[in-house]
């Protein structure tokens, strides 16, 4: 694959070594700050910009404005001005991310931090795991995929736009009997639309529409239970524990096969962990008997006896932590209350937090929905 990722770093070797192990090093065009000064428009048509925050050893401890122009964010602003609307998604990386951003980096909230500083993603350069490389490549692949799909999206009549998006980018199966419901789900999450002006240059247009799409995937579709859901959400709908479902899904049985056919395989597929089509899971659950004991028996037949841990809860919900990030824990809705903050889009479902977690946390208590505050009071 040709070089499609612009990478600015004074110490690029760690990332490049990782990339080389996976055969992806050819994709990176490495520039230092000095190189950038000599080039007018670095790597036009790039699928991603990867910018290291500290490009000057000295500026790391400098609390003055002296080292400003060498930081990844300043470079980003400059690049943004040069590239205009057609800039690709940008990833800010650093060995000292918390120092760079000046605040704590919560793993589940990086999309928010990124948005606050204006980029699409932020990542700690952690050579041991190499997760950040996978994230970068996933983002670049998504941009490239959108580029390829622009012609089809431009040609689709408005009423088929979401369907075309589903077919070309989200790998929505044309045969799935839950296809219409899935399209309706995607539409409910308000995907960014192709701007009419860019139709003339469809295909040549450089990322003008790709970046908003990638940003939407990161900040909305994958950040909340949307048209695609996490394993914990699937487990809650099946009323089984997340751990036992994970084990079953990885084994060879009827349930694993059924779940595999409902797995999300479109762009940004494994970016935030595996996802499954919400409409697909609903369709699967609907095909099972509705009575509780018959449903359990049907699931046991698919998964093998004793493999699934059934949860005896009336209404199973996935529990979120104090930062409103989903965990793998599933609890009864009676033991939880609903909470949201100012960041969640209005069409996102609320986070469910345990009442006992709210008890010791005033900030969290303030995020609890007004309608649910009374149930906190009565139970305390």
């Amino acid at each position, binding site marked *: 694959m040709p070089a499609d990722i612009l990478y600015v770093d004074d110490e690029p070797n760690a990332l490049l070594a990782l990339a080389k192990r996976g055969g992806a090093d050819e994709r990176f065009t490495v520039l230092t700050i000095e190189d950038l000064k000599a080039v007018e428009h670095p790597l036009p048509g790039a699928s991603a910009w990867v910018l290291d925050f500290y490009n000057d050893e000295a500026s790391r401890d400098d609390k003055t404005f002296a080292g400003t122009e060498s930081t990844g964010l300043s470079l980003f602003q400059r690049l943004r001005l040069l590239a205009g609307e057609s800039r690709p998604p940008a990833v800010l990386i650093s060995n000292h991310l918390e120092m760079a951003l000046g605040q704590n980096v919560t793993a589940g909230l990086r999309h928010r931090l990124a948005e606050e500083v204006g980029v699409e993603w932020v990542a700690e350069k952690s050579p041991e795991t190499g997760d950040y490389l996978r994230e970068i490549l996933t983002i670049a692949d998504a941009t490239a995929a959108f580029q390829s799909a622009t012609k089809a999206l431009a040609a689709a009549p408005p009423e088929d736009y979401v369907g075309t998006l589903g077919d070309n980018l989200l790998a929505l199966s044309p045969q799935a009997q839950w296809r219409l419901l899935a399209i309706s789900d995607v539409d409910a999450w308000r995907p960014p639309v192709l701007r009419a002006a860019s139709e003339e240059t469809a295909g040549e247009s450089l990322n003008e529409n790709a970046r908003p799409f990638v940003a939407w995937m990161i900040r909305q579709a994958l950040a909340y239970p949307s048209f695609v859901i996490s394993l914990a959400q699937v487990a809650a709908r099946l009323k089984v524990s997340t751990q036992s479902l994970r084990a079953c899904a990885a084994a060879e049985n009827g349930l694993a096969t059924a779940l595999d056919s409902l797995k999300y395989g479109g762009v940004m597929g494994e970016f935030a962990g595996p996802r499954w089509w919400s409409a697909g899971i609903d369709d699967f659950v609907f095909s099972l008997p509705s009575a509780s004991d018959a449903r359990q028996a049907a699931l046991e037949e698919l998964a093998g006896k004793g493999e699934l841990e059934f949860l005896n809860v009336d209404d199973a*919900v996935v529990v979120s932590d104090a930062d409103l990030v989903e965990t793998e824990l599933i609890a009864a809705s009676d033991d939880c209350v609903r909470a949201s903050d100012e960041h969640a889009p209005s069409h996102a479902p609320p986070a469910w937090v345990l009442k006992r977690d709210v008890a010791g946390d005033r900030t969290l208590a303030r995020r609890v929905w007004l309608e649910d505050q009374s149930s906190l009071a009565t139970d305390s």
Partner: protein
Amino acid sequence: MSLVIDLAEHLAEVKAFASLASDFVDKKSAIKLDSLVRTLELGITQARAKWTWETKLPIEFGPSTSYDAKGKTMPETWACLSFTCEFERPDIHRRKPDAMWRIDNSSVHVKMAREGRDFLSCHFDYKNATQWGPQLHVQLAEGEHRFPIPRLPSGIFLPTDCADLILSELMPEAWERHQRRGQASNDVSMVRRAQEERVLSMVGDIKGQWANDTRITRVSMLQSFTPTVKGVPNHRGKIPAPSWL
């Protein structure tokens, strides 16, 4: 009989139901649904001694062509639902009034419509004190034929419950599937629990009355049933106990 109802509790149920039902109405009716929820909220916060919660124009559910049997296509049909609920309580001047009112009167009208014309109507309501028949009932023929009987006993009288019945009849498969979706589970729970408590409360009351009078058949008794429950239980089973009673 005048049931007491905690409208703040009922509001949560109405919101949940409106969220579920909004997929089964057109744009105009979706606006009307929103507006009805809003009116209920306003009524609660304004805390007047007497006020009416009613539809200005009917809510249209549908259309549907599959309401008879699986695989059978029927003529396209809509169901139009309108209602009037009159709430009242003694005039209380308190800094923080509660959300409890008596249901003075309640009636829900349903019309089935085909090709732009109504062709069947029924309504669910309380009966007047002077009339015979069960207090809570559904009547089929009073509209066109001005014929007051039969009054079929009904535990269903609240607008949301009537809408639920209509949707279950008009689009059985779609309505069921919609409720079983993962995203709907919380809304369904809210409505389900409140309905369970209402039915259980009514059934308990009927059982109690049966035990008290064994000189008449049970069907006959049901036909003159007037509930002695004090209030409409909320989704936790709690029957409201207003301070002014």
